[in-house]
């Protein structure tokens, strides 16, 4: 069985620093795969390479067998890869629903921008229904008309997730979804992700610091340090390989509690 996403020999250098040094990574379809490691280990950089925000200096990234590196960043969503952002990126002045509709862009034809014809109106109606359903799923149905900037922080994170889901991705890249959330919110997110993976057959690549979340939802965990893979396995295996990562895991779990 081939992996949904396959990264081989990825290299990224910033100035003289090797942010990612020959990374190989395979994400199997239908799994929740977590990418962990200390600050500056290259987790977010790897994610940014997949979504084509960075041009890597070497290596290859394949999604369903196709090379991503030959595609511009905006084509990635169309291929079925959605992503969220670590530092919230939202259209703060637009309503929650509009944010989701923006995420839906690859799925919409749009019609004639200068004339709201019947087809365009029909598509618009359908898109709004789908968008409302997505908001419902993340528990924001009541906030559809609220400007995103006026939502609480946790709600903004959920909106970001709903927006990323709107392009009906087969692979979802989540960049620290739990960062800044309260414990109760983390638990809700936990349930949501598990439910997502189960119900919509979406594969999730998760970059996360909150170990509780990683350990409870991930089926596979990859540990990065200094841009290199230092361990990989199931959460239990990773926990058992404490000799390799003890210091690091201990520190992080302590910090998060």
């Amino acid at each position, binding site marked *: 069985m081939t992996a949904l996403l396959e990264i081989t020999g990825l290299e990224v250098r910033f100035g003289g620093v090797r942010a990612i040094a020959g990374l190989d990574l395979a994400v199997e379809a239908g799994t929740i795969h977590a990418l962990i490691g200390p600050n500056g280990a290259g987790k977010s950089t790897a994610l940014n390479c997949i*979504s084509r*925000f960075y041009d890597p200096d070497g290596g290859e990234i394949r999604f369903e067998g196709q090379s991503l590196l030959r595609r*511009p*960043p*905006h*084509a*990635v*969503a*169309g291929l079925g890869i*959605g*992503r969220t*952002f670590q530092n919230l*990126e*939202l*259209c*703060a*002045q*637009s*309503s929650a*629903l*509009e944010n989701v*509709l*923006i*995420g*839906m*862009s*690859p799925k*919409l*034809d*749009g*019609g*004639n*921008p*200068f*004339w*709201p014809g019947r087809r*365009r109106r029909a598509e*618009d109606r359908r898109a709004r229904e789908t968008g409302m359903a997505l908001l419902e799923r993340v528990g924001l149905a009541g906030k559809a*008309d*609220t*400007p995103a900037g*006026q939502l609480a922080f946790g709600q903004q994170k959920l909106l970001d997730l709903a*927006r*990323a889901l*709107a*392009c009906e991705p087969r692979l979802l890249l989540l960049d620290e979804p739990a960062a800044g959330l309260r414990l109760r919110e983390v638990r809700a997110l936990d349930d949501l992700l598990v439910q997502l993976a189960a119900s919509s057959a979406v594969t999730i690549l998760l970059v996360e610091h909150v170990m509780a979340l990683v350990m409870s939802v991930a089926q596979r965990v990859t540990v990065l340090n200094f841009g290199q893979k230092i361990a990989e396995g199931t959460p239990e295996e990773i926990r058992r390989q404490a000799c390799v990562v003890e210091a690091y895991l201990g520190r992080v779990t302590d910090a998060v509690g």
Partner: protein
Amino acid sequence: MRAVWIALALAAAGLVFWMPLYVLYVANLLLMYAVLALGLDILVGLAGQFAFAHMAFFGIGVYTTGLLGNRLGVSFPLPMLAGAALAAIVALLIAIPALRLRQVYLALTTFAFAAAAQWVFHSWDAVTEGSNGLRLAATRVLAWRIVDDRDAYPLLLVVALAMVLLRLSLQSSKLGRSMRALHQSEPLALASGIDARRVKIVAFGISGLFAGIAGGMLPLFNSYVHPDTFGLEGLVAILTMIVVGGLGSTFGVLIGVALIGLLPEVMRDLQVLREVVYGGLLILTVMFLPQGVAGAWRPARA
């Protein structure tokens, strides 16, 4: 309720038709400014890009329309549409290279282009009559000749209304949504599958199209045009309109056009302070009222 407001606005617009020529001239000007401002706002307010070339596209529209009318006697609205098409094409030709790199390059390239275009209007005597200015023949609509401001007003009103509808349609379309997304967060737009560069180029082109249409409106109620009309000063006036009215909002832009457009009529004595007033309004609005007058009473946009 909204229907009543729209009806009242249309009625007021109809009433203007019976006013003295002075009122009609001012109304005609405002209609033209409205199209010009709605166009600039598509670029600045919707797509969040800044460019200096708007008056140059306006000029392309004016000269194309004027020359087609003068020399070939082509009937309205063909010259106007030709002018708008040409303006849009030139806009696209500029945007494609200018949007390759950092965002500021659009501002820089168009700053240069605006000045170069004005130089061309001033110096290409054989076509624009240079700084002598170009006399514009009365516009022909089939067999009917538009001679005064009263004749022109209904046509201008129809054109302006059409452009308002076009703009409203654009705003609620997927393209309009993509522009708003781009404006607020380019990474988000890219991650959502929006081709940021393409949307910027298209926004610039549509903005040029609106400027071109506005340019086609000018010869309907003016008999003469001078290249100085297309300088930085005009851009600042239009910019003040959209900033004060409310960037990104059709309603706001129209309010801004009315407020700033009527300012010289109600406060002619204040004209000594004109530059300070325009400049001050720009600074104070971006400081204290980033959403403009429209945003002040409608804080959110759905």
